[in-house]
């Protein structure tokens, strides 16, 4: 299953892809890319505070997996969560307004970049503590199984989180109880500034599922079709009641760990090379070209997205700060 991460164009689709689906995936990836670029800009302008972790470079992972989900599936991830929210169709305006700490943000301005949620869209956060979302994702899977529905939990975490003990506590219970959870390891090669090689013993992070009897795959996370196909296999497996599944996505983040990371732990060349050879958006764009999609259509998508992002940024800056009364609300329900 191991695939070469450095390739220029996508594998020829193994499945019959509907052109609309491919265009939608392209659109969503571009939305995430442009959203993150704008967030970076607003951060530089002082409009966004605190920690802000951008998803640029990793777009194919979340969009590919999302394309294999059905309504009612739950998603939970770490603090690098903007892409996941946009992939779940959460409103870019609400996400951006949360980044700027305004009352129209998804958490009324009380959560910020790392802590956003939408029950309606099945997005359960946005968690700031490395790996804390992993048992929570297993717990969401537990609720699906308990309720006897066919939904699954998609639980994302990074290569850094993959060394936390609670990941293995979750693997163990998920496997024992056959919980419908897809553990998606977004291996972007660096946990903050420490490369996987320096932090993680053993060959592949995905191998660690073997000890718990969990099926795993390594997937080229820069290739959205490979991601989608693996996601379909994993999700089908979970929906069939066979237990958890691990997908290790080999991906890459172009930006630093957060906005304040100078990224001295890797060379500019390394980043440029991946950008040039395996950018997930360029990959699907060339596929669309190859399939005969007119340049004008792609241009129009681009223009649409630019205006969505401009509108979201304006909304996020125009929205008022939360009312001071909000300080003492939402601490407990009663």
């Amino acid at each position: 299953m191991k695939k070469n991460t450095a390739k220029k164009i996508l594998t020829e689709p193994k499945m019959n892809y509907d052109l609309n689906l491919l265009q939608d995936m392209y659109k969503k990836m571009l939305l995430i890319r442009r959203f993150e670029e704008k967030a970076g800009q607003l951060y530089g302008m002082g409009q966004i505070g605190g920690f802000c972790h951008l998803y640029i470079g990793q777009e194919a992972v979340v969009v590919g997996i999302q394309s294999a989900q059905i309504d009612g599936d739950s998603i939970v991830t770490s603090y690098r969560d903007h892409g996941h929210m946009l992939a779940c169709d959460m409103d870019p305006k609400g996400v951006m307004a949360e980044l700027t700490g305004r009352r129209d943000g998804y958490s009324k301005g009380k959560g910020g970049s790392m802590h956003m949620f939408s029950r309606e869209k099945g997005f359960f956060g946005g968690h700031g503590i490395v790996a804390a979302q992993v048992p929570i994702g297993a717990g969401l899977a537990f609720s699906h199984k308990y309720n006897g529905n066919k939904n699954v939990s998609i639980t994302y975490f990074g290569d850094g989180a993959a060394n936390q003990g609670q990941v293995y506590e979750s693997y163990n219970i998920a496997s024992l109880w056959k919980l419908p959870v897809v553990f998606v390891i977004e291996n972007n090669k660096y946990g903050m500034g420490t490369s996987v090689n320096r932090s993680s013993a053993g060959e592949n992070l995905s191998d660690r599922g073997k000890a718990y009897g969990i099926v795993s795959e390594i997937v080229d996370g820069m290739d959205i079709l490979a991601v989608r196909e693996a996601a379909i296999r994993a999700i089908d497996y979970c929906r069939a009641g066979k237990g958890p599944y691990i997908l290790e996505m080999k991906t890459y983040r172009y930006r630093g760990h957060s906005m304040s990371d100078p990224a001295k732990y890797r060379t500019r060349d390394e980043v440029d090379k991946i950008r040039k050879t395996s950018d997930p958006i360029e990959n699907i764009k060339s596929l669309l070209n190859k399939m005969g999609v007119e340049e004008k259509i792609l241009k129009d998508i681009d223009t649409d997205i630019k205006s969505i992002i401009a509108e979201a940024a304006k909304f996020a800056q125009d929205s008022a700060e939360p009312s001071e009364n909000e300080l003492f609300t939402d601490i407990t329900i009663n």
Partner: protein
Amino acid sequence: MTIEILMPALSPTMEEGTLSKWLVNEGDSISSGDLIAEIETDKATMEVEAVDDGKIGQLLVAEGTEGVKVNTPIALLVDTNELPHTSIKNIAEKPYLEKEEIQIKPINEKSISIEANSSLITVREALRNAMAEEMRTDKNVFVMGEEVAEYQGAYKVTQGLLDEFGDKRVYDTPITEHGFAGIGIGAAFGNLKPIVEFMTFNFAMQAMDQIINSAAKTLYMSGGQMGCPIVFRGPNGAASRVAAQHSQCYASWYSHCPGLKVVSPWSSKDAKGLLKSAIRDPDPVIFLENEVMYGQSFSCPNDDDFTLPIGKANIEKDGNDVTIIAFSIMVGKSLEAAEILKDKNINAEVINLRTLRPLDTDTIIESVKKTNRVVTCEEGFPFSGIGAEISALITEKAFDWLDAPVTRVTGKDVPMPYAANLEKLALPQVDDIVSACAQVCYED
């Protein structure tokens, strides 16, 4: 030579047990390691092995006898090598202890009056009833934890739940507190109502991040979207002779954090009424029980719908001279102290807090206004403890009503020692409460 076989202590807090079955008869030859009896404690039924070789001379306690105190001789073992010809029937002078002769009395109360529509039940039974009743009425309620299902509960609190509700409602977990606490929280985000048992709250330290960062804070961080209706329950505080890592009160730790409710029952009535409320509550509730209290009996309402409100204290005894504020096991000790204080002509009021967060400040302040003197009691450490919080509260809200400094009776500021004498010194005793009350009444 005749050896007395004594009733063994099978757990740190065991004081007595039931000799449920003899596995040998008088006259049987046994070797060291043979099973000789089954003994039921309030935690489990255990088989007892012989520790010497010989012949069973006499069984001193009949099968089925309850309330056999630890260290009571239960049988005589004859050394067959030394006394090969002695008639075993003649050896024992001690009377055969008949089942009926054993006096069974509740440990905690000299006389307990049973209220109307109530029964005398243990705190353990009250907790179990609360869970079972709520599980019958709400299919989203389930129980998970170490040994809660097949083992029937490390402290038997979940006894019978697996039989009644099956393995889709009662889950044995591996010994991985951080992981299963997080799974419980995820399930609660998924609209279920988990009851997560920690074998003791000492082990919940492993799960602290999930409890605080995920359960307590997510509602706020989500702008009110992500409720977490979960109960974390289990024994808290000192048990007996288990030393520092297994004897700590976590009341002040959890009470410190916004987003949590912290409840700590004393009696069976508290246990049932508050646990039912905790299970029904939409917020995460930390439910701090006490191992020593599990076997104590109290009058408890039979009604399946009986609940006690979270956030409301109870005045267990009215008084005018001094207010003793306590929770959990310290309520019983405070009531004992109040009895002793009567002889000193001090009429103490005893407040059972029941809930530590949100604290029932009204009841506390009203009582201060009546008695003008306060003694707080807790097993936990003094520094940044519940007593410290109450003292600050009274200073802020009722300073002018005080006739004496608020005085704290607490566990000592040391890790719990193992040695029996040191452990006793480390824990707050009835006498400490009596002296503190006398002191604030200027009667010492």
